[in-house]
């Protein structure tokens, strides 16, 4: 038994096996789980977390962490909705700039990236631990969101924008398409480019990476920029799904995202992990959320169960590392 569990193929796909067992378990308890509507619901609901988490994976692979993604999501969501609805008004110049749906989305993504780059700049320039730098950004971005929205949701953003969150293309919900595209881009980046290899190198041994001539700061800056941009994509998805930007959107999403990364087998100490693992992690969380509600488990127990699953994932991961 022990030998078979240590088989490299099983180790590699342990989160997939966990997901399979979870699905099996829930479908035994509820016949509503394995229906196409429900499974599409799950995938649509996790699409936001998937976007954030693939960005987070890159950060964690470098042994960093980004606590600000939820707040960046909130801020970019508000700005996207605000630009779409009210445009930009420069009163002093008597100038009004209107935004199309695409324009507002691009602006939100750029701002997300800028905030992420700022994170990266603080971390590299002042050698501040990522935990602290991004914790500061968590508060700053949330505060800016409150300032921008004055604490009030920005709603009714038009059917075109709503399509992004609620529409279907070729029988697949649009948010699922978008998250899929984001995943493919980041998978390509990590597996097929030198940029990806450098990320693993930095996470594995930063000193060695530095000595072998990798410009660490540039890579870090880019990775935090990507994480910020991914958060903005998540923000666009949430906003269009609700057809409304909520001032508290994205609150504590960073925790779900870190959970997805960890459950997916990425080591918080960096260097080890995959983007696809994170996607499976996000699916596990989504399936778990879905199953607990389908079975009408008390909300009190749901939190306990979710915590236990995260714990189990990390323990299994640790045991595997020891076995190596």
């Amino acid at each position, binding site marked *: 038994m022990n030998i078979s569990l240590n088989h490299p193929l099983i180790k590699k796909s342990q989160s997939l096996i966990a997901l399979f067992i979870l699905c099996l378990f829930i479908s035994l308890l509820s016949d*509503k789980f394995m229906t196409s*509507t*429900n499974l599409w*619901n799950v995938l649509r609901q996790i699409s936001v977390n998937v976007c954030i988490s693939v960005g987070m994976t890159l950060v964690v692979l470098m042994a960093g962490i980004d606590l600000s993604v939820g707040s960046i999501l909130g801020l970019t969501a508000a700005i996207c909705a605000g630009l779409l609805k009210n445009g930009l008004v420069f009163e002093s110049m008597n100038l009004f700039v209107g935004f199309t749906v695409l324009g507002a989305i691009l602006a939100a993504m750029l701002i997300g990236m800028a905030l992420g780059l700022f994170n990266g700049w603080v971390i590299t320039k002042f050698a501040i631990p990522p935990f602290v730098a991004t914790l500061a950004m968590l508060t700053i971005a949330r505060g800016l969101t409150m300032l921008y929205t004055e*604490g009030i949701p920005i709603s009714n953003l038009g059917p075109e924008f709503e399509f992004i969150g609620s529409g279907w293309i070729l029988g697949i919900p649009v948010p699922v398409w978008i998250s899929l595209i984001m995943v493919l881009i980041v998978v390509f980046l990590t597996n097929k480019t030198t940029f990806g290899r450098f990320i693993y190198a930095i996470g594995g041994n930063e000193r060695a990476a530095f000595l072998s001539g990798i410009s660490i700061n540039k890579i870090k800056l880019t990775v935090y920029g990507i994480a910020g941009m991914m958060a903005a994509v998540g923000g666009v998805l949430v906003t269009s799904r609700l057809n*409304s930007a909520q001032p*508290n959107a994205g609150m504590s999403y960073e925790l779900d995202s870190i959970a997805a990364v960890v459950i997916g087998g990425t080591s918080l100490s960096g260097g080890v992990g995959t983007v696809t693992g994170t996607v499976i992690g996000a699916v596990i969380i989504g399936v778990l959320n*879905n199953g607990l509600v*389908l079975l009408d488990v008390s909300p009190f127990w749901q939190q306990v169960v979710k915590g236990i699953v995260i714990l189990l994932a990390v323990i299994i991961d640790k045991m595997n590392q020891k076995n190596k």
Partner: protein
Amino acid sequence: MKVKQFSLILLTLVFVFGCSSNDKSEKPKIAVVVSTLNNPWFVMLAESAAKNAEKLGYEAKIFDSQNNPAVESDNFENLISSGYDAILLNPTDSDGSISNVLKAKTAGIPVFCMDREINADDAATSQILSDNYSGCVSIGIEFVKELKEKGNYVEILGLVGDNNTWARSGGFHSVVDKFPNLKMVAQQSGNFDRNKAMEVLETIMQANPDIDAVFCGNDAMAMGAFQALQSAGKAYKVKIFGFDGAGDVIEKIREKKIVATGMQFPVVMAQTAAQYADEYFKGRRIFPQRVPVEVELVNAANIKDY
């Protein structure tokens, strides 16, 4: 070295000028301490309290307790030491906030509670309260009437650690549970959040495709429920009930897409609290301990008044 010198000078300056500015200015200062600013409803409560205080000629400042009695406690300590003269409080917790209010009382600062109650009769000077429980009793009565005493329904709770969640749920169930043909098929939390409520209801509808009604612990969640029902093509036959009286839900009631909500009056509560503080400064000392501000049921019958 330079840094040391600079900070020494700064420290001296603080001592010299910091003390001199301690002189009481003419205007009494009123602090508005609110449980959270992450929810539009509370933002409105806090801002109208501050505005009303300023209108009466006082200096007013808003403090955010971030839904945390410990943060509230810090706020109170800071307020007491920086010489505020009255506190308009929206408490974080009915028990957890008592000690904070007592601290202010000991320091001789009157506290006027708004919206949420604290479970003590001798701590706050007066409490101007929104009656969540009886508000949801009215919702419950409307609910029973609309459903003609039978059907399957879903309840979407607010934050499960929040006392308003349970006051609302309790008021609702005190009526609805008397009708055995009204069956609650699922009770889940939507965290007072529009997105969460939408996702939760999407999932619940998979397990229970035939529901007749949804009761939501606040209006943000009622909007989320509406969206979930609308994308499932069921908005026309599932009756939605909310609570708060938020603008977008009022619109939906007008369009007959949401059945009813409980209208709370944050502006009235804020105004009364500021008014009481003003009277306190002018010498009044006897206030009613609890001033209930009724929650009004809004439905198709009276929507034209809103």
